[in-house]
């Protein structure tokens, strides 16, 4: 079956040890996590994990269900790139002397990158974009020697008009009232 990149979004209670529980699912299935990003979500007390992984359609279904099964996971979803707006951020450290070379400046302009900090010795450049874009910039800059390079995990937002998590939480709240009302 054809493999492609899936982006998994996991919403969880803010419980220690949860990252471990999630990564175990990938390890057991012999899947490499391509990128991972974790942060509090917009809802207080709920954490959000964004994970990207290469696998086939059957596998992603199984992985999602196994993640969802963990008690403290509120909900796990997956999407393909077409359903998402997604970004990664990359930082590059180059020597300032190189920057004075006019060619480097034109590269920065071309990629719409930003200069974050200039020191007599080094300069830090930032670029946001898809992996291929930040990688291309790396390759161009590297012709002048990149001293350090780092790229974040992907973060993403769904294009869908439906906010699945909110709907799910509303449903659970109704259920809570039913049970506790009894």
């Amino acid at each position, binding site marked *: 079956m054809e493999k492609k990149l899936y982006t998994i979004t996991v919403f969880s209670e803010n419980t220690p040890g949860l990252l471990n529980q999630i990564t175990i699912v990938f390890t*057991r299935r012999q899947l490499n996590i391509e990128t991972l990003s974790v942060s509090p979500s917009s809802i207080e007390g709920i954490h959000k994990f964004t994970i990207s992984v290469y696998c086939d359609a059957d596998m992603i279904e199984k992985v999602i269900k196994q993640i969802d*099964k963990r008690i403290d996971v509120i909900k796990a979803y997956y999407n393909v790139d077409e359903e998402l707006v997604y970004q990664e951020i990359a930082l590059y450290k180059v020597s300032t002397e190189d920057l004075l070379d006019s060619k480097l400046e034109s590269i920065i302009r071309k990629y719409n990158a930003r200069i974050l900090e200039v020191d007599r010795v080094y300069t830090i450049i930032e670029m946001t974009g898809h992996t291929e874009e930040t990688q291309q910039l790396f390759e161009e800059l590297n012709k002048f020697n990149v001293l350090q390079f780092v790229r974040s995990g992907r973060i993403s937002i769904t294009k869908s008009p439906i906010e699945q998590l909110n709907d799910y939480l509303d449903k659970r709240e109704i259920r809570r009232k039913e049970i506790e009302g009894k």
Partner: protein
Amino acid sequence: MKEVTGSEALLLSIINEGVDTIFGYPGGTIIPVYNSLYDYKNQLNHILMRHEQGATHAAQGYARVSGKVGVCFVTSGPGVTNTITGIGDAMIDSTPMVVVTGQVGTSALGTDAFQEIDVIGITSPITKWSYQIRRAEDIAWAVARAFYIARSGRPGPVVLDFTKNAQLETVNFEPKKCNFIRSYQPIPDINNDKIKLAAEAINNAKKPFALVGQGVTLGNAEKELKQFLEKADIPAAFTLLGESAMETDYPLNRGMLGMHGNVAPNMKTNECDVLIAIGMRFDDRVTGNTATYARQAKIIHFDIDPSEISKNVKADISVLGNVKDTLPLVTNLLNKNSHREWIASFDEYDKKEYEKVISKELETKTGDLKMGEVVRAISDAVDSSAVLVTDVGQNQMMAARYFKFRQNRSMITSGGLGTMGFGIPAAVGAKLAVPSRTVCLFCGDGGFQMTMQELGTIMQGEIGVKIILLDNEWLGMVRQLQELFCEKRYSATKMKNPDFCEIAKAYGIKSCRVTTREELAQGVKEMFADDKAYVLVANVEKSGLVLPMTPAGTDVTNILLE
């Protein structure tokens, strides 16, 4: 509200959950709990096991027979690591269990303190939930949550790692109840479209066939199952853990599935037109090669756990929910039907199996005792009404094949993990759960020696389990594989055994060794003469084979009969 120590709060919380029996083993970091236990002796019966693995298997046996949550107390470090086998076993076999582990004080966590081990890290992959209690205020909440998680939905083990400071602190205690967790939906919503689709497929089926798993037992859906089967006249077969959900002689019960199951149900898997899986998970020991498994059939999968759907075998129709709820909804939509001809077509395979395998196992009147005939002799002596506990190996398969059942929740075996040593402690737990019933354990000479220290528990607690040791002086099941697939190169499977009767005697347990059919009859009589513990050692044929057999990974229809 009452001011108590954390240890006392733990005991009050579990009493509040209806617990009256605990299996455990004390040690340094759980001493405060045991100290409090001294005051609750009348409400909580603590069974001192001889090894923490035994405590977990006893809790499993207890839980499986009674449907209640099994409870264990153990100390930190080695106490916890000794429980891992039982926790893993409970996880894969969906057994509700709460294991309370002592832990070093919060301030010493992460320092490699004496008997400190990363309990949450080690147990979280093999538990439904594991949680470290670091403050006495959290006890009521954590215990309520632990029991709710362990017993709801698809049951499973929960670990509560109880730091010593939380045991010693005082707290204003009031028990809590838990029946809702936002992030956890134990029973998925029922989808009526799927109910209709399932009913329609079954109504259109000419050759429907139902596979009964432990989900039926866990959902207490034995009655609902029968109504379902009877209305549309559907033949059924059971998985190892699904055994005893239907009585053995129930007319629509056509036998056991899987590697050492009956011929007809395995063959019919690849002949039916609609395969109805009910609370089972298409384990590889049931399916063999999934690439050729039931390819001709439409597959309907009833399960409570969404992650089981299409995990091993792709379902055409999935019916999520507790089978106790979903089966009747489908039954309502079923046409009354009759599939006499289809059902009769099983007979031919039954006949063949009887001739080639069963008759030899049960009716040979000369030579060494056969494992199957020993099992059947015991089963007949208890009139098919006992609880069966098994260890793992040939003894397990023979017991599953030849023991007969009349009552549900009567088959206690380690299915998913296949844990040797499960038997003796699980039988202890089972007997304590249903003291009025006869509990028969079958084990091999290998498995017996893995947990035979629990004879001490049996002695001390005067626990009347009937142990039948099928002694072939080999690790029989492995020997069988070596005979069939390794050119009889018997590598590390021959056993020089102690005198098992002397061992039983050392523990004050009556025993006998039987070699002939007359001795067997006599021994069985003596064993059931009273309700005390007994060890019956049967010298069975040394090179017995469990047949039929479908070699691992091959087609479900690739059945060896000799």
